[in-house]
């Protein structure tokens, strides 16, 4: 019988251990980078202006 693919749920007690494994995965992924890409919110120029002020970006603000 084919095994079901499931996403796991973690408890607070498991959080540190899973986070450590995730850091190792991320470091491994950086060895031969293709990106990075940002998957998710990408601000429009107007949205950036609203969020970070008239100068438009955190880099400029800093």
């Amino acid at each position: 019988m084919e095994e079901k693919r499931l996403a796991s749920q973690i408890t607070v007690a498991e959080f540190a251990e899973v986070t450590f494994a995730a850091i190792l995965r991320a470091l491994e992924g950086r060895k031969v980078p293709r990106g990075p890409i940002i998957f998710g919110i990408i601000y429009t120029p107007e949205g950036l202006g609203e969020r970070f002020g008239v100068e438009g970006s955190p880099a400029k603000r800093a």
Partner: protein
Amino acid sequence: MRSTSASDLLCPSAQPDMGGSRLFAVVSGTVEQPLAAYLAKALQVTPQLLAMTGPVEPTEIFRFAAPCARQACVHFDGTYCQLAKRVAQYMPAVVDRLPACPIRSRCRWFREQGGVACKACPAIVTKDYRAVPLTTGVALGKDPLAQGRSG
């Protein structure tokens, strides 16, 4: 139970510094097949939590949910999230059952695309150094199938 209005919906691939951001999953798995593990309850983002990621950025390993930026985000078309649509349309299911996700009731992707988005969601890395062409196409709004052919 309070119903969630469209303006209350959360983006499940947000940044930690956005107002109201919550950590709801840790992306573990492997480099080739990242797979999110979901928290029973989303955590408030704190400097201590972000410091736990050490040498990598929080968005490389954590998934954050924050209120949808709507018109301030390039993926929002005025009514729907086009990123959610591409996730549901192009990204393969990586799990067979809906993950036990603490933000589903307020998730814009689930609200608009249903469980199809949820079954692809565990493979998503917010800041991804090893994105395959399909993922890059979905993330950037280019034709993912064309991306796949070229890459």
